[in-house]
Each structure stands twice: as C-alpha cells, then as structure tokens.
C-alpha cells in the first residue's frame, strides 16, 4: 500500500517554521547530486570548526598582544611544546596509566556493587524497602563530601582514591539499574513464564536484554561520576595522576601543562565514550524496533 500523498504533505520535513508572512516560497533545495551528501558533510564540519577556530585565534591574539600575563595564559605554541615534552619524557603516560587504573578499578568495584544492589532492590520488594531510603538519603551528599572522612579512616594513599571512585560509581549504577529493571514491560516477563523459563533463563533472555538500554544509561552516568571523583581526589590530594599533574603545574604557574592535562582528559573521555557507544551498538543493535 503506497503512502498517502496527504501524509507526505502533512509530515513534510520542516524545521521550526517561525511565522512566515510571505505567501509564496519554494522549499530550500537540498543538495541532491551524487556528491551532495559529501558537500553537506564538509559544510557541517566547517561550521563545527568555526567556533573552535575563532577561540583559538582569540587565544593567540590575546597572548601576542599581552592582554593577559604569560604566567596566567600561555600561548597555544607553548601548550604544544609542553605536550611534546611531556609525551617524550614518558611522564604523561605514567600519569595517564595511574588515572585510568583508578578509574577502571573504581568503576569495576563500584559498578558491580551498584549492579548487585540495583538488581536486589528491583527484584525484591523487601530489599528495596530496607535499603532504598538509606541510599537516597546518602545520595543527597555529594560523594566528594565523603573524602575528608575517608582520608581520616583510610589515609591518603591508593585505597583512598579507589574507594572514592567506587562510591561515586556505585550510586548512579544502583539507582539506574534498579530503574532499568523496574521499567521492563510486564508482558515480556509473562511471556517468559508462560514458556516455563527457569529463573536463569528469564534473567538471561528477558531481563537483561530488556533492561540493557537503561543499564547503559546507568553505566554512562557512573562513568561521568567516576571521572568527577577521580579528577577531584587527584586534585585534592595525590602525588600522581592527571589531576595531580594539573594541581602541581598550577601551583608552579605552568599553565601550559594544565591545559595539556585538560586536553588529555578530554581525549580520554572521548575515547571511553566512543568505546561505550560501540559496545552499545553491538549489543543493542536491535533497538531500532520498538518493543
């Protein structure tokens, strides 16, 4: 059955039409030639780079004209030099490795605990009743508030960093996974039970796939919180790691290194996000269809 032309008329792709007073106008022609899409892509890329380009130019000019002292804002060239130096000297790699290690361990520990808690609260009404209120209450306090306390109990070495990141990752993971599971449509579970699925089968074939999108959202939030925690604790009290690099360089007025560290953190963040997206695509490719 061919689509109604009326439908095409009504649902034509229009952006937000803001009060057009003119009577006759032809719709904007989209580049429909063979290489039209390529030209479109290039145009979009150009527009996207416009702002960064402007900012970069502004930055250079500010330094050239000495509108800001050099100790406060080094020129872009100095940042590039610093990057080169610190990559050469292996120093950067060390810091990156340490920060990533803390991030990963914290995510692993906090994430698993959070997942178990989330599952428990979602599957058992009793567990939820006992645990959730305390949890929500604890969540009111930003995780970095725990740090002074933890420092006293755990010291300032590695256990501190990892425990802070774990706590930070745990909260969104548990609340998020609890919600993800609670939002599974009842109908799907019932289908499983009609077909006599065992508990394990139910979990593997119904609960996990149906909860997967929500779980990924929870994972993303955990990653964000974990990053926040690891950078914060490294800024506050650490002798290694990217946060430490920033704090140390800042105290020595080596702002070029500060910027280098920021860029590295950004790139790492992008890579991790990209990996998550790939993983999500791979596991949740079916998401096109609404269930």
């Amino acid at each position, binding site marked *: 059955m061919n689509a109604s032309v009326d439908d095409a008329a009504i*649902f034509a792709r229009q*952006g*937000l*039409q*803001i*009060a*057009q007073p003119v009577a006759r106008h032809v719709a904007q022609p989209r580049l429909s030639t063979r290489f039209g899409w390529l030209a479109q892509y290039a145009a*979009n890329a150009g*527009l*996207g780079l*416009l*702002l*960064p380009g402007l*900012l970069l130019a502004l930055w250079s000019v500010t330094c050239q004209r000495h509108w*800001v002292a050099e100790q*406060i*804002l080094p020129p872009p060239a100095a940042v590039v030099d610093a990057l080169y130096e610190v990559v050469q000297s292996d120093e950067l790699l060390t810091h990156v490795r340490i920060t990533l290690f803390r991030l990963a361990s914290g995510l692993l520990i906090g994430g698993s605990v959070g997942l178990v808690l989330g599952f428990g609260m979602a599957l058992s009404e*009793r567990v939820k*009743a*006992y*645990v*959730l*209120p*305390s949890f929500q*209450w*604890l969540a*009111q*306090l*930003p995780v*970095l*508030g*725990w*740090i*002074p*306390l933890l*420092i*006293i*109990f755990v010291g300032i070495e590695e256990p501190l960093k990892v425990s802070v990141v774990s706590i930070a990752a745990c909260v969104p993971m548990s609340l998020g996974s609890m919600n993800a599971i609670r939002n599974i449509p009842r109908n799907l579970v019932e289908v499983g039970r009609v077909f006599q699925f065992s508990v394990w089968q139910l979990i593997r074939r119904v609960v996990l796939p149906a909860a997967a999108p929500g779980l990924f959202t929870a994972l993303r939030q955990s990653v964000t919180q974990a990053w*926040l925690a690891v*950078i*914060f604790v490294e*800024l*506050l009290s650490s002798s290694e790691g*990217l946060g430490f690099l*920033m704090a140390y*360089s*800042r105290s020595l*007025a080596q*702002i070029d290194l*500060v*910027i280098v*560290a*920021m*860029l590295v*953190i*950004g*790139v790492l*963040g*992008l890579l991790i*996000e990209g990996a998550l997206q790939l993983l999500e695509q791979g596991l949740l490719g079916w998401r096109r269809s609404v269930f």
Partner: protein
Amino acid sequence: MKSLESWNWRGWVLPVFLLAVWQLATAQHWVNTKLIVPPIGVLTTGLKQVTQTDFYVGIVLSLGRDIGGFVAGALAGVALGVVVGVSSLADRVLSPTFHAARQISLFAWLPLLSALAGTGELSRVIFIAFSVLYPVALGTIEGVRSVSTGHREVARVYGFTHWQLLRRLILPSAAPQILGSLRLALIIAWMATIGAEFLLVNDTTGLGEIVFKGRRAFDVELILFGLLIIGLIGGSAGQLASRLETHWLRWRAPIR
C-alpha cells in the same frame, strides 16, 4: 494504607540499626574513639557550632555562591538551549564545541579557571554557573525539539510573532524537560559549590571550608556535622524543587 506504613517503617531499620551499632561500638571502646567518634559527640559539636556566627556566615556564603551561580548558569543554559534547539545553524556551529568541552570532567576546569580568575568569589560563582550550563542546556534542547509540529501549525494559523512563539508555545511546551534538568542542575551546583570550596583554598569561609577545617584538626565530629548539614541542605533544596515542579506542571495528565 497498611503497606504504606510498613514501607516507611522498614526504611528506618537500617539507619537506626547502624546508629545503634555505632553508639555501642564507641561506648564499649571496641574501636579507636579518636577515629570513630560517638554519635553524641557529633551532636554536641553540632550544638556548639550552631551557636557560633562563623557557622552561619559559612552557610550563607556557600548558599549565596550556590544560588548565584545556579541562576546565572540556568539562565545561560536555557538561552543557549533555546538558540541551539530552534536554529539548526546555531546547532551546527555550537554543538560540536559544546560536546567536546563536556568530555573534560568538570573539576578539571578549576585549575585553569583559578589561574585566570583567582581563588576568590568570582571564580567560584563562575565555576558553579559553568557546572549548571551543560545539563540545563541539554534539557532545554530536548524540550525545544519536542515541541509538536501540530502545535507549531496552530501558532502559524493564529499569526504568532517570534516572541509570542517563544513565550507561549516553545517555553511552556519545553517546561517539563527544562524543569527536570533544573532539578538535576541543583544537585550538580551544590556539589560544585562544596567541591570548589575544598579545592580553592582561601581566606574566605563556607560550609566546605568548615568541613576542611575539621579534617585539618582531625575533628571528626566537626566533619560529620558539616557533612550532615551539607546533605540536609542538598536534600531540602531537592524537595522544594520537586514541589515547585509539581505545581508548575499540574496541567500534565497523571501517569497511569
């Protein structure tokens, strides 16, 4: 009704139990009472604090920064969100930079900011505003984009001007998403406030500083009391925001 009561009751079991264990442990000296102080101690320290003006000054300062930064960031976030949501051109110019900048974890911006703007009130408020900008803009964009075509056509039929379109269609229609993002931003702003106080060492004071003082002095009671207040403020702000949101969105159909 019966099940409602039992839910409330069960929620208290865990905290009360832990509190009891805590009190017992310190009373019986099972643990080093230097480190793990009795709960009563927290209370007495708390009472002592509450009588000192320093404490209130600290709270007022922290709250002031929080609210100032939050309002500035929220206004900017809504404005930015509306612009990006409405104009595809603005979206293509601004969004890539926006999303790239977001990858740099919030606190990583603080050293640079403190280099450029010092460790005083200005950087703190800027930092808090910055922390709020992204979530609010994101929520606003989502809200603006979800304005239905049907409603937009109604606006065209009745000859809405650009301003009328914004004020009477776009913003009310996006209100659920905007208000939701504001609630989230409130939590983030409070975290940014306390975090900035921890990191930006200065002469001024604030709740964060009070907690920090406690750490320096190994005054666990002070730390705990400070944390309690931080949590209480965060929690009450959240409750207030929830109530406001429900009131402003009372036109929504109840779910189920």
